[in-house]
């Protein structure tokens, strides 16, 4: 087995890639997918430390993160749909009504 540091490093790397995507992209759905990716990176760290410490609390936390992510995706995509209905675009730069 690999040492624990490789999993933690992978988790940090995936979190960073998700953050870069969040800064870079303009498509609302791609932003949503980047957030999902960052949640997954944190989940990997949770599982790794759960295995390292030797109890199951981390894996239960991952389960709850998945539940929240499911609820969040349902509501988030509904919000994206209603934004698309009123602005006719899901590019974040097109819905800039509040921009001064």
């Amino acid at each position, binding site marked *: 087995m690999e*040492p624990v*540091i490789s999993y933690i490093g992978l988790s940090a790397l995936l979190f960073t890639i998700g953050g*870069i995507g969040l800064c870079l992209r303009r498509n609302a759905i791609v932003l949503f997918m980047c957030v999902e990716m960052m949640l997954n990176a944190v989940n990997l760290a949770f599982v790794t430390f759960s295995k390292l410490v030797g109890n199951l609390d981390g894996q239960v936390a991952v389960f709850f993160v998945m539940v929240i992510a499911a609820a969040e995706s349902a509501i988030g995509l509904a919000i994206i749909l209603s934004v698309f209905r009123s602005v*006719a675009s*899901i590019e974040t730069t097109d819905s800039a009504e509040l921009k001064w």
Partner: protein
Amino acid sequence: MSFIGFVLSAVAVASALGVVIFRNPLTSAFSLIINLLAMAGLYAAMGAHFLAVTQVVVYAGAIMVLVLFVLMLLNLKFESKRRFGIFRTAVAVAAGVLMFATIVPPIMAHFDTLSTFTLSENMTKSEGSVKAIGTELYGRYMVQFELSSLVLLIGVVGAVMLAKRKTSQIGPRDGAAGGAQ
């Protein structure tokens, strides 16, 4: 075992970069599905079997199908032709480097511990089988588990309410469709 972990990690990083880089949202979505499946493989290799199955069923199954449905429903005929500007890319990468630099020092403080421990040593004590996770969920985490079902119910009701609302109820907007043409 180590080889499998290496391959899955490489696939996860490559597909994560694909989500960010690919111009077409559909390609990004499929790249994310590959990423989620690779993570599920990593969970399985680490002995978290319940989470591996849940990852495939909930994330790669339910959530990504929802994303693909929305992409199909929106029917975006035009791709975003606007390139990522060099300034925007530089700022994004700088923000990413800053974020990474914030995460790394706490890890490096415990580098010796983390690099000597391997996961197989504590494997038997924290085997994430369905039985073990279920005992935890219906034991110590009973209240939180029931509350999570309430969260899902509220999520479903809220999603239906948001999606069924007519545009006229939100209020007419001047030049609302201007962005499309």
